[in-house]
């Protein structure tokens, strides 16, 4: 079935959603906004043909000739979509997809479509669990390729990378107010006291230098709670630490130090808030 296309899923939020087949067809005939594509195939001829199609359709294309190279490029750069050959000599497409999915956001969230000449019937769940979003049968024709790429959400739909925590505000009182609006005065006092304990616990834990996984678990909880109460930089650095530990990245140690500093800053700020608001007697 040359050129047939089916979707396993499209895990990005700006997709067509409830669009009817007719609406989809109508949208597919419109010229697509240019996408940034990473094309991964270990056979040069396949790369050349598909890259020529993509460029003819107005898209920009970067090429990788193997799975490991693709993971490196996906970690260093951002793409709207990765077209991934499944069967490759060095690292196959499924393994490369699994590794890309472990990259911190937004790199790990890129849409990945498999390009394959082999039948995959019965393997759909395995492919979805590896992190593939959809499948294109090879050889792929121009129209099918254009339709598939046009359906991929644009980068603009994705969230920005939580880059340097220092660029984020220590504290955002609007966020605190948002949450406080849902709490009674009593609940607010209890919750802020709990948050204060959590922060102190994290500092103690960092100083005790536990297993990274244990520290990541505590950071995971604090990322949510601190974020809810407006401690933006702390929430962000906790999340980055957790992701670094999960992906086994070498900068986890550095981030632990940064996390300690941000926790101290956040504790200081929280005490100011408590004093100013007269909430909670600590």
């Amino acid at each position, binding site marked *: 079935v040359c050129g047939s296309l089916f979707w396993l*899923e*499209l*895990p*990005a*939020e700006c*997709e067509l*959603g*409830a669009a009817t087949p007719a609406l989809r067809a109508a949208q597919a005939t419109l010229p697509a906004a240019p996408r940034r594509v990473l094309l991964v195939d270990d056979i040069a001829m396949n790369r050349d043909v598909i890259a020529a199609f993509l460029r003819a359709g107005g898209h920009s294309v970067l090429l990788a000739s193997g799975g490991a190279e693709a993971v490196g490029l996906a970690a260093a750069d951002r793409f709207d979509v990765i077209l991934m050959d499944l069967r490759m000599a060095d690292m196959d497409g499924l393994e490369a997809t699994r590794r890309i*999915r*472990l990259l911190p*956001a937004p790199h*790990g*969230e890129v849409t990945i479509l498999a390009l394959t000449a082999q039948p995959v019937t019965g393997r*759909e*769940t*395995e492919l*979805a*669990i590896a*992190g593939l979003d959809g499948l294109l049968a090879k050889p792929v024709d121009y129209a099918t390729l254009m339709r598939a790429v046009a359906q991929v959400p644009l980068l603009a739909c994705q*969230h920005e990378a*939580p880059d340097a925590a220092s660029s*984020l*505000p220590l504290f*955002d009182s*609007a*966020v605190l107010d*948002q*949450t406080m*609006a*849902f*709490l*009674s005065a009593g*609940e607010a006092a*209890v*919750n802020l006291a*709990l*948050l204060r304990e*959590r922060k102190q616990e994290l500092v103690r834990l960092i100083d005790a230098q536990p297993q990274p*996984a244990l520290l*990541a*678990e505590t950071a*995971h*909880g604090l*990322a*949510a*709670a*601190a*974020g*809810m109460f407006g401690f*933006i*930089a702390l*929430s*962000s650095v906790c*999340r980055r630490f*957790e*992701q670094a530990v*999960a992906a086994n990245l070498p900068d986890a140690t550095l981030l632990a130090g940064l996390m300690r500093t941000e926790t101290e800053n956040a504790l200081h700020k929280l005490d100011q808030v408590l004093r100013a608001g007269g909430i909670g007697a600590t």
Partner: protein
Amino acid sequence: VSSDVQPQGLIFGENDPLMRGIVRSVLLQTGHNVFLAADGMEAISLARRLQARLVLLDIGMPRLNGMLACQAIRKLPGYTDVPIVMLTGYDDTRMRQAARLVGADDFITKPFRPDQLLARLMVHLDTPAPARAAALTALGRGPECPGSHVWNTIQPTIAGGDSPELLSGREMLLVLRDAEGHS
């Protein structure tokens, strides 16, 4: 408890008391009763005893995680069409995909804006299933707030109407191994 007078309400499974308190306050704003569970087993047990209008589940819970709880609750009688929403600090793509595979309808990451959580839950509660995906899309992510995003990434489950394929035991092990790797 007689089965034809089952109490109604919302079930919320979360092991972190801090988050449980905040979310409970948000859930009460929907006007429904709120039933709290501290882990996945308790959430399933609550779902067996009452016909919930909506189930909200954290993923990283002790005893039984939210993914497995979701899969189990989805199979209970009366829960085929009940919205199940995952509320979690795990925001990687594979978690979202796994959530869809176990039958969840929506995926919201922590930290979130309470007003946006409330707005999304109201859509799930008040909009008939066929129109839900469009309503959620229209809701969007709301105003940007650094470090505080509400995500929605698994609409097709609602839009398509076809029930997602449930994971086999072996596949679930893969998902769980993954979840452990993240905690």
